[in-house]
């Protein structure tokens, strides 16, 4: 049933990942992308767990919401959250899922996504903390069970397909019970959720951990991929960082062209760049990246 839901999703095309510094660019360059992907968490201030009522807990910024409503009149808006922390062992934030469901009702996005990682947890001091890093979860049976239960809850609460993004990791947890591809395949097969395949994450992991990204892609069930992320990075002290700092490396464009024919359910290819790099990168290189994504996507069509 869920497979059908993914197969029936609208093919939106090329997406741009929204950042605050791109406000002007977005409105001036609507023709350069087909949909806008937003991190909903930056449009509200989370008053924290225990705050009674969804509206009270998630206080939305009026000006930002007015801007988003304006964009939504002209382009589909897709939610890509950073706030669920679905891999956290100590708690599962069902209020966050409800808030996403509310946004889905408001903006009508055909799918939504979050990250396969954890970043929130309870500190020894008793405070909830946010590490600010998408921390990897061990690819173990017990973690798979935990995630499946939570994905089921998300899918029961938000009435559109849910995607999880493959993580970028700079350290690899030893003695894992399965590899990344097997873990992702079993997760998507058991829950029917989709995959947000971040190709730059795969490239970064391959470069830092010494494997060919194709080895992973060949083992992945690519029919579960609904959305693809592209981005740029930089080298720091011998480590390549998924810094979202500029143009996409040529190797990632090649990977995109190679896998698109094998991803029949892909509905969107999104380019990501952090807002603080936009002033130095400038609008034309950003338009170029979007154009290139469109060319490759069109070739597949």
């Amino acid at each position, binding site marked *: 049933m869920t497979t059908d839901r993914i197969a029936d999703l609208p093919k939106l095309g090329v997406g741009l990942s929204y950042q605050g510094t791109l406000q002007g660019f977005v409105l001036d360059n609507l023709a350069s992308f087909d949909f806008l992907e937003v991190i909903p*968490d930056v449009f509200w*201030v*989370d008053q*924290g767990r225990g705050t009674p009522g969804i509206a009270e807990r998630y206080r939305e*910024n*009026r*000006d930002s919401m007015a801007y988003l409503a304006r964009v939504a009149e002209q382009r589909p808006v897709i939610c890509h959250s*950073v706030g669920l922390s679905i*891999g*956290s*062992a*100590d708690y599962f934030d069902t209020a966050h899922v409800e808030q996403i469901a509310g946004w889905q009702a408001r903006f009508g996005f055909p799918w939504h996504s979050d990250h396969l990682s*954890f*970043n929130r*947890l*309870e*500190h*020894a*001091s008793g*405070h*909830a*903390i*946010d*590490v*600010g*890093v998408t*921390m990897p979860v*061990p690819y173990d049976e*017990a*973690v798979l069970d*935990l995630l499946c239960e939570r994905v089921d809850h998300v899918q029961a609460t938000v009435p559109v397909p849910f995607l999880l993004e493959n993580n970028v*990791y*700079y*350290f*690899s*947890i*030893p*003695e894992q019970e399965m590899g990344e591809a097997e873990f992702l395949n079993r997760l998507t097969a058991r829950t029917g959720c989709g995959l947000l395949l971040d190709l730059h994450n795969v490239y970064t992991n391959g470069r*830092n951990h010494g494997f060919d990204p194709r080895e992973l892609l060949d083992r992945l069930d690519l029919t579960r991929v609904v959305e693809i992320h592209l981005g740029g990075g930089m080298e*720091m002290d011998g*480590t390549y*960082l998924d810094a979202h700092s500029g143009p996409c490396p040529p190797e990632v464009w090649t990977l995109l062209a190679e896998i698109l024919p094998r991803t029949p359910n892909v509905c969107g290819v999104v380019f990501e760049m952090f807002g*603080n790099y936009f002033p130095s990168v400038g609008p034309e290189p950003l338009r170029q990246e979007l154009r290139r994504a469109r060319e490759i996507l069109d070739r597949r069509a």
Partner: protein
Amino acid sequence: MSLQDFQRALSDLVMSPGLRSRVAEAPAAGLAGYELSDQEHRRLAALARDPGLRTGTVIHRASRLSMLSNTIPRTCRVLGSRGLKELVHAYWSEHPPQSMLYVQEARRFADYAFARLAAGTFANPFLREVLEMELETLVLSRADGAWEPGENREIPERPRLHPFCRVVAFRHDPDVVIRTLDAGRPLDGVAAEERFLLLSAAGGGRVNLRQIPVEQGRVLAVCDGRRAANEVCALAGVAQEVLRAVVAAGLVV
């Protein structure tokens, strides 16, 4: 409990290079505070020696520092790289990150910095005024409206600063301080003198800044809506004409 403690230990290893070194040298002692299975213990002991964890620390710190550099950039410049490093590292060691909410993090850091200034354990003559200015700017940039100059009115019984305005007391000329910081020059040599900066919400996230006469600043600084008009003037040490002038300007409600 086990996975929970594994994640807590892994996060601590990312956030604390000191813990990482202790675990790398003596895993049993370094991980003694966590309830871990044997496998989790082995995993963490190996990760503590993994250079990739250092990259995690860099990203964690960059992420946390960016919350300050985006919300209180002039405060970061006032501190300079050495002062910022000293204060931020001390703050981080005592205050684990609670959220990725930029404004909340800026306020927590500000509370810490003000406490250090008050205790005399950190000194910087420009820090308090610039940090207060930036915190008030953050508040007003999220105001649900804009301040507009009013018409002449009677002095209210208990004068209160307009909710879309803030007054920050400076011990230096704020125009010179802001100009110097924005030009990336050091603040050495800026003379100490009492000044006041008026901040007003301009709508759409914008905030206007302008200096006001010292007497007006003194009186506005005590217009908290709790004191009677004559008490306000007495406390500020100014004549009632000064209060009348700020009322006429629409700065008091």
